[in-house]
Each structure stands twice: as structure tokens, then as C-alpha cells.
């Protein structure tokens, strides 16, 4: 196998190399290095993929889809936010192997990868907020944030929606492009993509339930400031606008 493809398989993580990424990411204790990794990792992978100047073999695409499904499926039972971010990062970045076939422009592809990473960055920041407040960012540990921290919850829900490829966020464009690429190939790839999307939605809904739903069982909790909420909202709006823009590129 081409050494560049092998290297790309580490940065657009294919199983079992994905375990290395997961190990590295969860080993990082601070938010900043995690954010840098989330932003840079898929970009390096895409750069390596473009350097090969050839389409990856079909089995690599199949392995990418299988890896995505594997991590999406495993994310269903995750409660710890860093774990969840790590698994969803692997699951969504591996889709780029397929998307690379349908989007020729390298710049668009890199922007799309950025669109996949940014919501994960936001969730990492939200997780660090929870860690400061409660000592851990763990679903089910403290219920009812929907009422206790309404601003935080609003941003949290929209961030999860962006990660699980809800229209009109960039993840949706990536998934749409992947679907169109898959329909050129085998029906199995299309079915795998369906299952991947299903697991993302399921995992996202479980996370929302774990954090937002329930009776608040804590006293005074400090919500994020109005300014911070506005900043998050602006980034999410920009992401949605970018998602719409990339959708028009597909058509």
C-alpha cells in the first residue's frame, strides 16, 4: 500500500490506526491542545490524500465506512464528553475518504473538513465549562441542565445537531456528498452510510437526554454569560451559512 495512503489512514483515522488517535486525544488534559488536534488532524489527512494523486482503492473506502459505523455505534453508550468527541471525530472524518471522490476542489474539501471539526471544537469548549463547574463532563451525572443552564443548553443542543449532520450544517453537506458518491458505487456503501447516520442521530439524542432532560437536582448553577452565548450562536450561524453555501456547490 502507498505509504502516503497509510499516513492518511492515521489522520483520517481508519481502524485500527484510529485507536492511536483516540489514545492521543484522550491523553490531552487541556482544551487548547485538544482544539488544535481537532482542527489540524483531518487537514493533514486530506493533504496527504491529495498528495497521493490517485483515488484510494475500493477496500480503503469500505474500511473507512466500516470504521465510521464502528465508532458511531460505539458512541451510543458513551457518557463522557471527551470520549464522545473523540469517537464522533473519527466517525465523521472517515467519511471524508468518500467525499474526496465527489468534490474535486481541494479548498472546498478542506473547508468542509473544517466544518466537521468546528462543532467538535465547540463541544470540547462546552465540556471544559462543565468540568470547571462540576469537575466532570459526564452525561447522567447531573440532570436537568435545560432549566438550570438555559443558555448553555441551547448552545449545547445546536452543537450536537451540527455534529450529527443535521441540515443545514456542513456535516449534512458532507453526508449528502458521501451519499451521491456512494450511489455511484455499490448499494452496500449506501446502506452503510444510512446506518452511520442513524447511529449519529441516536448517539446525539442520548447525549442530549443525558445532559439536558430531567429534573434539576442542583442548587445555584452559573450559566454561561450572555456574551459567550452570542459568540457560540454566531459561530453556529456561520457554520449553517457555510453549510448552505457548500450545498449550493454540490448542485
Amino acid at each position, binding site marked *: 500500500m502507498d505509504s502516503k495512503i497509510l499516513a492518511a489512514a492515521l489522520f483520517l483515522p481508519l481502524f485500527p490506526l484510529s485507536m492511536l488517535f483516540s489514545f492521543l486525544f484522550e491523553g490531552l488534559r487541556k482544551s487548547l491542545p485538544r482544539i488544535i488536534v481537532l482542527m489540524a488532524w483531518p487537514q493533514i489527512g486530506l493533504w496527504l490524500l491529495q498528495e497521493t494523486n490517485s483515488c484510494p482503492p475500493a477496500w480503503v473506502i469500505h474500511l473507512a465506512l466500516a470504521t465510521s459505523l464502528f465508532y458511531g*455505534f460505539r458512541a*451510543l*453508550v458513551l457518557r463522557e464528553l471527551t470520549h464522545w468527541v473523540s469517537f464522533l471525530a473519527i466517525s465523521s472524518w472517515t467519511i471524508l475518504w468518500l467525499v474526496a471522490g465527489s468534490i474535486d476542489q481541494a479548498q472546498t474539501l478542506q473547508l468542509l473538513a473544517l466544518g466537521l471539526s468546528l462543532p467538535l471544537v465547540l463541544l470540547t469548549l462546552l465540556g471544559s465549562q462543565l468540568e470547571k463547574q462540576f469537575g466532570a463532563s459526564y452525561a447522567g451525572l447531573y440532570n*436537568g441542565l435545560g432549566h438550570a443552564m438555559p443558555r448553555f443548553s441551547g448552545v449545547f443542543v445546536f452543537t450536537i445537531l451540527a455534529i450529527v449532520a443535521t441540515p443545514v450544517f456542513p456535516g449534512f453537506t458532507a453526508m*449528502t456528498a458521501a*451519499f451521491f458518491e456512494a450511489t455511484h458505487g455499490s448499494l452496500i456503501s449506501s446502506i452503510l452510510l444510512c446506518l452511520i447516520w442513524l447511529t449519529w442521530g441516536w448517539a446525539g439524542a442520548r447525549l442530549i*437526554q443525558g445532559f439536558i*432532560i*430531567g429534573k434539576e437536582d442542583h442548587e445555584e448553577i452559573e450559566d454561561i454569560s450572555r456574551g459567550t452565548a452570542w459568540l457560540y450562536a454566531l459561530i453556529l450561524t456561520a457554520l449553517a451559512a457555510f453549510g448552505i453555501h457548500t*450545498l449550493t456547490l454540490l448542485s
Partner: protein
Amino acid sequence: MEQLFLLLPLLPILVALINQLFAKQLGRSVAKISVRASFVSFIIAVILLGDQLAGSPVTNVHLGNGIGILLSDPLSCLMAVLITGISLIVRIYSVKYMAEEDGYGRFFILLDLMVAALLLMGSAGDLLTMVVSWHLVGVVLYFLIGFNLRSALSSRHAFWTLITYRIGDLAMMLAAGILFHTFGTWSLSEIFAEIRSAPGVHKYGGFTVEEITGALVAVAAFARSAQFLLHTWLPYTMGGPTPVSALMHVGIVNAGGFLINRFAPIFAQTEAALHVIFFVGLITAIIGSVLMLTQNDIKKALGYSTMGQMGFMVMECGVGAFSLAIYHLIAHGFFKGTLFLSAGSAISKARKHDGVPKQDLYTFAVERKTAVRRQPWLVMALITIAVPIAIIFIAHWLVAKDFYQKQGAIILLFFGWVTGAQLLFTTYRMNTQNFPRMIGTILVSFTVLIAGYTLIGHAFDHFLYPDEVFRKQIYSTATIDVFWFDLVLILTTLVIVAGWIFTYYSEQNRLRDNKERCNNLWLSFYALISREFYLMDIYSWMARSLLQLAARINVLLRWR
């Protein structure tokens, strides 16, 4: 008119945005703004429908810069009037109903977003807009059903809805992918034009593109319209706020019928898809109705009633009566919406006094007291079998003399006949002072219903599908071999008549010998339907098993 058409989905989005941005300053005024904007939307929708009725041509309205296309045609305008009309009523109702709930503003913002998504779905003129709006309806519904953030149960039901809808979304996405891959365009008008000019030419996975995309669109419709095996979410979503339950019957749960109509040019070129749709609709109609009869919770019973109605609506599509399905979904939207909005006050009043007049109907239906003196059975048998069929045939013959040449019309007539005959059969033992008056009232009501249904169905057919050749093509696609059709119809008739004779006989003799055996059989059947065929248990077990498997793999791989 194009600007007005664009304004239709944009207005609720704008209102939701304003209400969110100025939530603190507006306070409870968010409801007023939402209601007023909703009224404006309704007026716009009525103007657009009037324009279509006046004979305006079908137009593609571009959203600008290739973002998407809206299709201004009779179907989209009709759906817009339905959605804006009922959502206006729902919002007016919600102003007071939701007044004491936490998240009053959030509720109206979600309602506005839902209406925007529904309007976008109803008028989508390209595959991307259709997929996006179809998907968003499910997402917004998730938050509306789980509106009460403190209720884990509501959240669980919202989750089931989301997952079921996601199955439909994915089928829709696959269909869109295959159509785009085949025809190289997103525009529905262009795709349909190509299919009309060269049907059955393109293949995908060994099937014609029409057949495979027809099947996928049907799956999307089944998930949305709670067809059997994908229905478990519907009765449980009734735990959400009552206005949401009412809104669900406007363009959400009945969107399956709309979708099949929107993709009618594809279904007209299929071979098996419409037969499968008929079969699934039939099974759903029967099971939904049976499950409805066993419920003791009024909202859950209404939920199963909706399932039965949706089954009938899908079945109508399966026999080629596409426009009749649209009439059905509109009529159902109005009457079920009314029932939901009055369910709360009915329960409240019933707690003080049930309000049911102790009349003939009550003593017969509730207290099960039958008449001592019965009517001559031969006369009643003749009335039961002959009169409904005569009424139905005359009503249809008046609007279309060749109706009996369409199998779809015959099947619907058959259902009409069974319903009418069953009604008469049930009432023949009713204790009443004036029997001829009662029978006369039933027959007049039945005639009005059948004549109304036939005339309006006929009008819808001409409004939605003005091309007569296309109308005939849909009916011919839904047609099966005459021998098998006649055989199935005769056998079904025999089974139903045998059922009536058996019921009559058993009532007469009270099944003295087999009472105990019948009771056991009945109890087993009742247990089965009271547990809703154990489907929810099976699905829960499957979900739990998958989660356990994921956890085991995670442990095995040390969470890496």
C-alpha cells in the same frame, strides 16, 4: 405571485428569529406576533390557492444563487392552505393553553419553525430542498414532543419518533441520491419530464430507477405516516402538549400521502410499488383500527385511530386514487385536529359529569342492552347488503360513468359498502321507539357522506391532475390481473358475509356449548392487542441488546 410564494416559508422563519433574538424584551408578546404572522401566512396561502384555481401555470420559483427551488402548483398551494389554516388555529389555542408552562416563548418559536419546515416541504421543487425540509420536520418534532424538559418519558417518546423518522429520512436521501446520479439534476420538474419521455430506460442495481426510487419514497412515506412496523412512535407521542398532537395531524403524520402524490410521475411508471403500498396501507388500517378499540386512554385511542386513517390514506394511493388521498388527509387533519383540541376539555368535563345522554344509543352501545323485539332478519339482511351498494354505485355513476372500469374505484367502493353494511348490521338490534326513522337517518347520513366524498374526490382529481392521460396511467399502474382481482374480491366478500352470519348466529344462540373455549380464545387475542402485538417490547429489547453490544466492544477495546 412568486414573491408571495417565497414569503410563505420565510415569514415563520423570520418570526421565529425575531422572537428568539428579542425574547427578553417581548416576553409573552411572542405569542401575539406568532399568531398575527400566522394569520398573514394563511391569507397569502389562500391568495395563492385562488390563483391556482384561476388556472395559473405551474411555476418553479428559485430561492436564489442555486440554493433551491420551490414549486408553485395546485398540490403545494393546497397543502399551504391546510398547514397555515390549522397551524393558525393551533397557535390561537396555544396562547392560553400553554400560558402556565415553562418555556412559553420556546414553544411558539418551535411552532413557527415547524410550520416553516412544513411549508418548505410542501412546496419543495428540488430534491435537496425536499430532503432538507423532510429531515428538519423530524428534528423540530423531536423538540416539540420533548417540550417538557423535566419529563424523561416525553424525551423517550420524542427519541423513538426521531429514530423512526430518521429511517424514513435515510430512505428519502437514498432515493434523492439515485435520482441525482441517474438524471444529473436536482429539479423535480426536470426529473419527472425525463421519466415521462423515456420511462423504464435507466437501471439501478438490476431494477428500473422508477421502481427502486418508488420503493424508497414509499418507505419514507411509511415512516412518516406511521405504517405498520414503523407505527410505534405515534400513539406514544400523545404525551406531548395537546397543541403539538393537533399540529401533528396537519402535515406531519399525513405527509406520507403528500409525498406519494408529489412523486406521482415516478409511481405511475412502477410495476410493484403501488401494490406494496396498498398492502401495507391495508394492514395498517386494520391493525390501527383494532388497536384503537382496546385503548382506555382517549389520546392514545385517537393516536391509533390516526394510524388506521393513515393506513386507509396510503391504501388509497395504492389503488391509484392519489387525489382522494389528499382529500382524505385534509379532512382527517381538520377533524382529528378538532378532536385533539377538544380532548382536554372533554376529559375535564367528564370528571364532573360524563355528559353522555342515556338514550337508545347509550343503552345499546355501552350498556349492551339489545331490543327484545327484533326486525325480520330477511328484510334487514337485504337492507344491509343492497342499500349501501346501491347508494355508492349511484353516487359514483353520477360523476364518472366509466368508474367501474377502474379497479381502484371498485376497491374503495367495496370498503364503502362494507362500512355502510356493517353500520346497518350493528344497529339492527338497537332498542328504539321509531325504527324506520333511525334507519332513515342512518341512510341519509350515509348518502350525504358518500355523495360528498365522491364529488369532492372527483373535483380534487381534476384540480391536482388535470391531465386525463396521466390520471388513467396512475389507475392502470395500480391495476392487477382481472382474474386475481375478482377472486380476491369474491373471497373477501364471502369471509365478511360469513363473519356477519357467524356473529348473528352466535348472538342468537349465545354460543352455549363453546362459551368457555371462545372466552379463552378471545382473552388471548385481547392480551395480544392490549400489548400492541408486543412490538414495542421487541423494539426495546433490540435497542437494549445493541447498547449492551456497544458497551462490550468498548470494554474489549479499552474505550479506544
